[in-house]
């Protein structure tokens, strides 16, 4: 991945770095290596995140760190708050409690410029949400020009690079309505990548796809994970969670029930609820 420009003041970055060092990191040079020594380099830190809709408490006290290069899969039954949590991280939903630290800066604070942060935290939706009035290419070019103020030439170059990466360069002048679901989702991924984000949030990216199109999107996501991109993926694709991610979070009832490496979660889950969920889901998949 390209080195990202960070739109924060220097002090804020340093503050983030100091806090990070305090967490035990020694600033290891390898960006892609995801080891405990790397723990200090967190991109995002979710602290006691809470979200209620009226009286209905959807998220109760969610906390976890996202380190550079992490591929985190969030799994759990429907209604467990997975998507709400992801939407809170991008502030599409306003958290009702807790903090979200981005390089040490609390982005739930009102003085933080949201648009700058959002450009750094890309999002891929279940329903694609491509701009219907633009061609595939412009879907990737225009946001760069509007939000990052890049020139048209520069933006086009970057957009073409990522459209190529997701295997969609043949369709650059097609409109969303003319493409299949899998093609749309790959363009949505290219659009997110074109902003050079530090982390991309995937909200059930394959749930709205026909079965034969799931593969093409997952393979793009596999490649991205391999390239060292930081990703948080809410998914029902257990094979992706098991094989591609380096951490798995199991959520139920608005809390993180269990968290660990894919080997731990899938191989030897400790909590009864995790065991039940996995046996149900994996059983269905195998049967």
């Amino acid at each position, binding site marked *: 991945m390209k080195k990202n420009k960070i739109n924060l003041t220097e002090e804020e970055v340093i503050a983030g770095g100091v806090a990070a060092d305090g967490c035990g990191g020694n600033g290891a040079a390898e960006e892609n290596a995801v080891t405990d020594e790397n723990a200090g380099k967190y991109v995002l830190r979710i602290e006691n995140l809470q979200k209620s809709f009226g009286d209905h408490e959807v998220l109760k006290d969610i906390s976890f760190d996202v380190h550079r290069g992490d591929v985190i899969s969030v799994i759990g039954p429907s209604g467990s708050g997975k998507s709400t949590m992801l939407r809170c991280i991008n502030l599409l939903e306003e958290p009702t409690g807790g903090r979200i630290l981005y390089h040490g800066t609390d982005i739930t604070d009102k003085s933080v410029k949201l648009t700058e942060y959002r450009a750094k935290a*890309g999002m891929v939706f279940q329903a694609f*949400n491509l*701009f*219907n009035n633009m061609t595939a290419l412009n879907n990737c070019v225009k946001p760069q020009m509007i939000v990052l103020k890049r020139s048209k030439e520069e933006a086009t170059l970057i957009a073409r690079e990522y459209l190529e990466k997701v295997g969609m360069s043949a369709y650059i002048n*097609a409109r969303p309505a003319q493409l299949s679901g899998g093609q749309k989702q790959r363009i949505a991924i290219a659009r997110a990548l074109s902003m050079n984000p530090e982390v991309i949030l995937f909200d059930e990216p394959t749930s709205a796809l026909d079965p034969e199109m799931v593969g093409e999107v997952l393979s793009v996501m596999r490649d991205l994970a391999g390239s060292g991109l930081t990703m948080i993926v809410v998914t029902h694709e257990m094979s992706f969670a098991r094989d591609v991610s380096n951490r798995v979070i199991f959520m139920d009832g608005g809390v993180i029930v269990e968290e660990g490496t894919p080997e731990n979660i899938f191989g030897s889950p400790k909590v009864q609820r995790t065991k039940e969920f996995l046996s149900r889901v994996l059983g269905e998949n195998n049967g």
Partner: protein
Amino acid sequence: MSTFDWIFKLLGEYWALFLKGTGYTLIMSIVGTLIGFVIGIGVAIVRTIPVKASANGFQKAAMKVVNFILSAYVEIIRGTPMLVQALLLHYGFLSKMDKPLLSAFIIISLNTGAYMAEIVRGGIISIDKGQFEGSQAIGMTHFQTMFHVVLPQAVRNIMPSIGNEFVVNIKDSSILSVISITELMFMAKSAGGSYFQFIPAYLICAVIYFILTFTVTRLLRILEKKMDGKKNYTVFGSQSDPDAEIHVKEKA
């Protein structure tokens, strides 16, 4: 002389009047529709600004006041006849200026603006929520979202209603003869009055109105087609030939 003969006689003698009247009618309806459209978009954008739950009391109060003023504008204009508005505004407030055409522009624009505000708001509401979320999530502000993503789609969807407003303006601008605008209806009355032959004069006037409105509807239909964009697209490169271009046509 038959009505038919009178029509030709009036046209022969007063064609310049009818032409001038048509000119005024057209200019008023064009200006009114365009400015009204801009007003409508402005009002609709402001009225759709999302107020965050965490916004402070001042922001919330300011939005409430602005929204109240805007909905008062929409309701009052829509709830009173344009004839009354024209008389009140021109003779009541703008009489000192004594510029009937300017008064006419203001009245017809304000009037159209109130209707357009609701039409545009309807257009914005009809756009899928995902379009807003996609724009927000990528870092666009409310105004950027509106101008680059939502309005281009919303305006396309409300084109038939905008056309309606245009047609209504062409016809309803006849009301503005009460503030001595020499538009088509006014001219028809004067032409007919000179020989006391009103029916032939009104017939001419009706035909001209119909030609105007019919042309406008056709033109807008063409514009709509243009806004829909190309029906086909090109796929660059095939499996065997990277330089191939495959032109794909949309299914009917």
